[in-house]
C-alpha cells in the first residue's frame, strides 16, 4: 500500500481527527521522560474504542509497521521512543473506568485511565488501590502495567503486578486474547496476564485490565528520623524488618539530597544530617501505635539523633512533602537529571551507597541519592548538562559502573523504571545469554514481523 492509502485506512478506523501526520504532531511524540535522543514516528493514531485499537494493531502488522503504544510518555527508559518510520498509538482516548466492584473488590479499566484519577475514584467508594508511582498524577494504568510500576508503598503493599488479576490484550493479528479473571483464584491456561506485566509494549497491546482493590488501612503514623551516617540509617532499616515490622513506607535520603531539598523549600530539614529516614506505619489504630513505638525504639537504638513523629495530617503531609520534593529539588540544580533505579538486596544498601559515593568522586560527577530503602530500590540521580560532551561521556561511564556494582551485589538493573532502550544492553549481564535468546525466541513467535515496540528490552538483533 502507498503511504496515502495506509493513512486513509487509519483514518477509516480511528476517524480523521485521530490520525496525525503533520511534522509538529509527530515531533511531539518523538520522546519520553528518558534522557535519550528522540526519534520521529511516521504517524500518530489515537483510537477511542477497543475495536479500533485492535484494528490499528492488525493494520500495522499487515503492513509491517513498527508500533509503539504510548500512555502518558512518562517512562524513564525510552519505552515510548518510536522506531524510525513507525506508528505511535495513543491510549489516552481509551480512558474509561468500566467497573468498580465494591462487593468483590476489583475494577475493570481501559488502559489510558490516569493512575491518580483511578485511585481517587476507588477511594470515593471506600476502597484502596495502593500502587502510587511518583508520576501517578499523569501516568496511565496501561503504562503502569507495562512497566510494572512501583511506588512509595511497594514495601508493604507490593507493586502493580500484585494488583493485576486479569487482562485482555490484542495480539498482532488483531485477535483479542483473554487471561485471568474477576475471581481471586484463577488458573485457567497460561498466566498470560502475568506475561504482559513489564512487557513494555513488546508482546501485546493492552485493552482492558482487571485490577485488585483492597480495604484501606484505618490509621497511619508518619515519622522522620535523623541519622549521623548512612550506615546507621540502613542498619535501622534492616532492624525494623528483622523485628517483623513492615512499614507502609520506608524512604531514605542522603545528605546531598537533604541539603538540596532544604534549599528548595526551606521546610526546616536538618542540613547536617548524613541521612534521613521517612517512615510510615499503617493498619488498625492499636497496631499502628504498637509498631510506631517499636520503630521509634529501634531508631534510637541505632543512633538516631532526632526523631519527629507527625502529630496530625498537616505534619504528616510535611514529612511526605520532603520526600516528594527530592526529585524536583535535584532537577532544579542542573539542566539534565538522570534518574536511575538500580536496586540491591536491602542488606547491601550501605555498600551500594558507599559505591555510589566512590563513583561520583572518581568520575567527578554530582550524584544525589534517595529512594525506597525498605525495598532496596535506590534512585541515584546524576546531575549534569547533556550538552557538555566530556561530562556526558563520564555520566555514561558512571551509569555502567552503577549497574556493574548493583549486579555484583545480587541486585537488579531496574526496580521499577523498566529496561526499554536505555538498559537493554545490560540485560544478558543480569540474566544470561540463554535467557535473552529465550526471550527473543518467544517474541519472534508472538510477533513474527517484530512490529511490537522494536528494540525495547531484548534490544536490536
Amino acid at each position, binding site marked *: 500500500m502507498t503511504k496515502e492509502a495506509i493513512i486513509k485506512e487509519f483514518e477509516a478506523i480511528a476517524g480523521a481527527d485521530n490520525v496525525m501526520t503533520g511534522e509538529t504532531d509527530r*515531533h*511531539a511524540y518523538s520522546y519520553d521522560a528518558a534522557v535519550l535522543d528522540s526519534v520521529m514516528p511516521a504517524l500518530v493514531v489515537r483510537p477511542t474504542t477497543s475495536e479500533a485499537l485492535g484494528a490499528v494493531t492488525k493494520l500495522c502488522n499487515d503492513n509491517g509497521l513498527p508500533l509503539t503504544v504510548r500512555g502518558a510518555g*512518562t517512562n524513564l527508559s525510552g519505552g515510548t521512543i518510536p522506531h524510525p518510520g513507525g506508528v505511535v498509538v495513543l491510549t489516552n482516548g481509551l480512558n474509561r473506568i468500566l467497573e468498580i466492584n465494591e462487593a468483590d473488590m476489583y475494577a475493570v479499566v481501559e488502559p489510558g485511565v490516569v493512575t491518580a484519577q483511578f485511585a481517587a475514584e476507588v477511594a470515593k467508594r471506600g476502597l484502596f488501590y495502593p500502587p502510587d508511582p511518583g508520576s501517578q498524577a499523569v501516568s496511565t494504568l496501561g503504562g503502569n502495567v507495562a512497566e510494572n510500576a512501583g511506588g512509595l508503598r511497594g514495601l508493604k503493599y507490593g507493586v502493580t503486578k500484585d494488583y493485576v488479576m486479569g487482562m485482555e490484550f490484542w495480539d498482532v493479528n488483531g485477535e483479542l486474547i483473554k487471561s485471568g479473571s474477576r475471581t481471586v483464584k484463577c488458573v485457567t491456561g497460561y498466566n498470560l496476564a502475568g506475561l504482559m506485566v513489564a512487557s513494555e509494549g513488546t508482546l501485546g497491546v493492552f485493552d482492558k485490565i482487571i485490577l485488585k482493590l483492597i480495604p484501606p488501612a484505618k490509621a497511619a503514623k508518619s515519622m522522620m528520623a535523623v541519622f549521623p551516617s548512612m550506615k546507621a540509617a540502613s542498619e535501622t532499616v534492616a532492624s525494623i524488618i528483622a523485628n517483623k515490622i513492615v512499614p507502609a513506607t520506608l524512604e531514605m535520603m542522603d545528605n546531598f539530597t537533604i541539603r538540596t531539598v532544604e534549599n528548595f523549600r526551606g521546610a526546616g530539614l536538618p542540613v547536617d544530617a548524613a541521612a534521613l529516614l521517612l517512615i510510615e506505619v499503617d493498619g488498625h489504630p492499636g497496631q499502628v501505635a504498637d509498631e510506631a513505638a517499636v520503630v521509634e525504639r529501634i531508631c534510637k537504638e541505632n543512633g538516631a539523633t532526632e526523631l519527629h513523629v507527625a502529630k496530625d495530617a498537616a505534619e504528616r503531609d510535611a514529612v511526605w512533602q520532603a520526600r516528594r520534593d527530592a526529585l524536583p529539588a535535584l*532537577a*532544579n540544580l542542573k539542566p539534565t537529571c538522570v534518574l536511575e533505579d538500580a536496586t540491591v538486596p536491602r542488606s547491601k544498601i550501605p555498600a551500594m551507597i558507599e559505591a555510589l559515593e566512590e563513583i561520583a568522586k572518581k568520575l567527578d560527577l554530582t550524584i544525589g541519592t534517595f529512594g525506597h530503602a525498605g525495598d532496596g530500590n535506590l534512585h541515584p540521580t546524576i546531575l549534569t548538562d547533556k550538552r557538555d560532551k566530556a561530562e556526558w561521556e563520564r555520566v555514561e561511564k558512571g551509569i555502567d559502573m552503577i549497574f556493574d556494582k548493583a549486579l555484583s551485589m545480587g541486585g537488579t538493573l531496574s526496580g521499577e523504571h523498566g529496561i526499554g532502550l536505555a538498559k537493554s544492553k545490560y540485560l544478558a549481564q543480569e540474566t544470561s545469554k540463554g535467557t535473552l535468546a529465550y526471550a527473543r525466541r518467544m517474541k519472534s513467535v508472538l510477533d513474527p514481523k517484530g512490529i511490537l515496540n522494536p528494540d525495547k528490552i531484548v534490544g536490536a538483533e
Partner: protein
Amino acid sequence: MADIHKLAQMFKELDDQLVGCMRCGMCQAVCPIFKLSGKETDVTRGKLALLDGLASEMLTDPEGVNEKLNRCLLCGTCQANCPSGVSVMDIFLKARAIMTGYFGLSPAKKAIFRGLLKNPKLFNALTEMGAKFQGIFTKKVDDMLGSSCARFNAPIIADRHFNTLASKPFHKIVPELDTPAGASGLRVAFYVGCVIDKIYPQVGEAILKVLKHHGVGVYLPAGQACCGIPVLSSGDTDTFDTLVGMNVDRLKDGEFDYLVTGCASCTSTIKELWPHMYKGDSSRTYDIGVLARKTMDISQFLVDILKVEPKELAGGKSVTYHDPCHLKNSLGITAQPRTLIKAAGCDFKEMTDAGTCCGCGGSFNIAHYELSKEIGSRKADNIIASKASVAATSCPACMLQITDMLSQKGADMSVKHVIELYADSL
C-alpha cells in the same frame, strides 16, 4: 520569507532555558488545554520540544510550531507546578516575540496595537463612540448579568454573551486625582487598566470608595495606557516598550507608598513583566523596578497592609470565588481576596477547582473561542454547583469570561469583583 536557519539561530538563544525541561510530563496534570484535547502539542512539554526542535533545526515548519505555540492561555499553571522550575512563561513570551519578528504582526493586530493602544486618546474616543452605538448591534440577554450578545452575525462576536462598553468610562467619571493621605497615613497610586476603564468603571469607583473609607490618599494620573500584556502575548515587544514607557512617565512623578490595581493581569504584568521584558529606553529601568516593587493587588493591599479582617458574623449573600491565574500562579495570592469577601460579611462558599483557569486568556478567547468556551463552561458548572448567588473574582477579564459562560447557561447569578462586595458593605 526570511530563512529558517536564521530563525533557528534566534531560538538558540532560548537554549539555556529549554534544557531545563526534563520532559517528565507532569505538566499534563495541570494544563487546561491538554485536559481538553489530550494532545502533546497542547501541553508545555510538547511546546517546549517544538521550540527545541526549531532551535536544533530538526523541524522545517515554523508556521506549524507557531500555531501550536498560540494554543495556550499563558495561564502559568504549568510553570507554577513544574518540578524542574522551568520558566515557561518567559520562554513562551520570548518565543512569541521571535515568531512575531519572523512572521510579522497580522494587519488587524497591527492596526489595533500600534494604531489604537499606543494612542490612548484615540482608543478612548473610539470606545466612547462604540458605547453610544453598540445598542444598534447588540441585544440584551440577561439583565442580572448585564450581558448582551450580537444582534447580527459578527464573526468575532460569535455567540458570546458579553458585557457591553460602559456608557461612561471610568476616565470620564474620574479623569485624575491627587488626594493627601488620611487616617492611614498612606498614599497609593491607582492603575486602572483598560477593562475596568471601559467596561467595569464601577470596579474603579469601588476601589476609590474603599481607599477613601480607609483614609488612603490616591494618586491617579490622567492618560494611563494599557499595561501591555495583550501586545506582549502577541509578540509585539515594540508596542509593549512604548506602552510601558508611557505608563512609567505618567506614574513616576507621583509620591506614593504602593501602586494598586484591581486587575490581576495588570498586577502581574507590572510586577513581573515590566522589569523583565522591557527593552526600551534604559533611563526608565530604575523607575520600572521601583514601580514593580510597589505594585499590589487591591485585596492584598487591604488585607496585608491595612489589616482588614474577616467579619465574625457572616450571614450575608453567599459568594464563591474564582482565582485568576495571574494572581494565583504568578503572585501566589489566594487568601487575601477570600478574606476580603468575608470582611464584606458575605457567606463564603468554596467551589471545586477554584484555581483552574476560566479559559479567557486574553486574545486566546478570540482566536480559539471554542476551546476557551469549553474550559469556561466547566468553570461555570463549578460556580453553579457551589450554590452561591454571586461569583466573585479579582480580574475584570475573568469577569467578562465568567459572565459570558454563566449567561449562556442561563444561570441566575451575578458576577462581581471582590472589591465591589467590600465597597458595598461599607
